[in-house]
């Protein structure tokens, strides 16, 4: 039997598509004409005709441009050099490079999901996936027992009864400190401690997928198979919370009345009884989001709803018992359904 000698090959070869087409700017800098728009950062991207730059690449040597994030000016020159791999954005005369993938950077007004990592005497330190921990001052939460009262020393002593280490919460970024760390607040009934659900973390920004800033970050899904209502909270920082929907007691009373009803139940860490049907739908939604991230699609209300409908459809095609598992074949047919629409 003849022996064939195979040439050695690496374990994995990236598809060798032609990259010379966008490589023509070796010494000339990137073409700054063309529409990159004044889109706010982290918004869903819809065009692929954006220029890609890599660290060390000269974006422009024209002194009329001002440098923004993701760039630096080499000493004693006017060249603006990219420091991250990403796309060039210009806002009037400001040049910045938006990274393809980066850790979450807090901005005022962001809805975030976080986890308490440290309890201090007058504040909590919260992990929101940012380079530094965010802080949640005691004065920025809804204290139990009535209308926006001042915090007292008793509250300081009982700080662990509100949030303790490991608790999850949803909050809004109230302000930013000079070092880029965020100060959070939960002074609304929309915010507060999280329970009755499941946490998941997707990469904050870029990588193709991830949560994007959108009109609605929190919504309720009417699930099938008797699952009832399920809340989904997409934190801008890539932390996601999926939980059983709880009707607010006396939902239509005056706003002051609601404030009064903020009692110790809001800070309860005890889960309610969750029916198996609801649990299955929660895990189905989680599976959908996982597949969206895996496929590099954006995670927002629109995509999650589409994905959920597709997942239910895939499930109904199966004979026998309903199954929320979306790995393997079910996942593949879900992706097919999503790409067909």
């Amino acid at each position, binding site marked *: 039997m003849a022996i064939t000698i195979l040439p050695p090959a*690496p*374990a*994995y*070869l*990236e*598809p060798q*598509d032609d*990259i010379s087409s*966008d*490589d023509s700017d070796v010494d000339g800098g990137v073409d700054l004409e063309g529409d990159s728009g004044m889109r706010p950062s982290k918004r*869903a*991207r*819809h*065009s*692929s005709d*954006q220029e*890609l730059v*890599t*660290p*060390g690449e000269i974006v422009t040597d024209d002194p009329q441009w001002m440098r923004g994030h*993701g760039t*630096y000016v080499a000493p004693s020159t006017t060249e603006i*050099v990219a*420091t*991250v*791999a*990403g*796309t060039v954005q210009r806002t009037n005369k400001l040049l910045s490079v938006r*990274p*393809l*993938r*980066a*850790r979450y950077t807090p901005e005022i007004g962001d809805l975030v999901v976080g986890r308490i990592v440290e309890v201090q005497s007058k504040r909590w330190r919260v992990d929101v996936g940012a*380079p*530094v*921990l965010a802080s949640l001052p005691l004065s920025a939460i809804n204290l139990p027992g009535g209308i926006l009262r001042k915090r007292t020393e008793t509250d300081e002593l009982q700080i662990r009864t509100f949030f303790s280490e490991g608790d999850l919460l949803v909050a809004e970024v109230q302000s930013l400190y000079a*070092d*880029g760390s965020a100060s959070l607040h939960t002074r609304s009934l929309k915010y507060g401690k999280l329970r009755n659900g499941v946490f998941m973390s997707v*990469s904050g920004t*870029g*990588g*193709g997928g991830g949560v994007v800033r959108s009109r609605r970050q929190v919504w309720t899904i009417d699930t099938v198979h008797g699952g009832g209502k399920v809340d989904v909270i997409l934190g801008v920082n890539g932390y996601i919370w999926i939980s059983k929907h709880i009707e607010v007691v006396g939902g239509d009373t005056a706003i002051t009345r609601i404030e009064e009803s903020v009692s110790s139940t809001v800070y309860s860490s005890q889960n309610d009884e969750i029916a198996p049907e609801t649990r299955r739908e929660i895990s189905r939604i989680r599976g959908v989001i996982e597949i969206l*991230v*895996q*496929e*590099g*699609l*954006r995670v927002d209300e629109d995509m999650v709803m589409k994905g959920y409908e597709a997942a239910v459809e895939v499930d109904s095609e199966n004979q026998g018992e309903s199954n929320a598992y979306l790995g393997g074949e079910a996942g593949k047919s879900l992706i097919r359904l999503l*790409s067909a629409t």
Partner: protein
Amino acid sequence: MPLDTSTYSLALLRLDGRRWNELRRLTAQISTQAAADGSSYLEMGNTKVICTVTGPAEGKRTGGAGTGGGNEAEVRVEIGIAGFSGVDRKRRGRNDKRISEMQTTISNTFASSLFTHLYPHSTININIHILSQDGSLLAACLNASTLALIDAGIPMRNYICACTAGSTSSHSANDEAADPLLDLNNLEEQELPFLTVATVGESDEVAVLVLETRVQMGRLEGMLAVGVDGCKQVREILDGVVRRRGKRILESAAV
């Protein structure tokens, strides 16, 4: 294990059939691990390295105004050499001198090349796992770290690209006519004098230069020139990896 270098002068081909100025096959992937902020997998010939980057994240407090509490991010590097990676199964202690020197070299290099001042009192952790070693270990670690840091979106001045360069005859042979060699494998590293050089992007600016073997002063310049030239080739390859990945991301985001 003595290396028979006498055949080199006849055919000008090295043990693995390369010429003096040829790199081994260099392939890399980025974003290999979804859970990390940035990750990469790099093969330089038979040297295989996995690198993950976590951070910048708030590190554990190391006592008041320690190193982590400054106005700049701290770069921490941890290298793990797998037991099966080399020819002999060597047990390495917690503070192996060789490993900790590599860690310090990598950490110092990136501390000066990254924009650490953008992330006050936080830590950037670089974890490197060596799966297979066949020479150019430090160079592979530096290249893999560069890719993982780019994947993590941490701003840096430029790519750090590294490779090794050697000389065709040993120190004792004292051969004036020795040719410089590029990108040595393990066998060559054991026998021949070599240095590891890393440059900042495509410039001639040297960021790392490590020479642990004895070599005549006259040969150094040639070795260095070949090494710097090799780094430029490495940069092109790494840049290609990043661009391909970026293009794919932009395409999928456009859907």
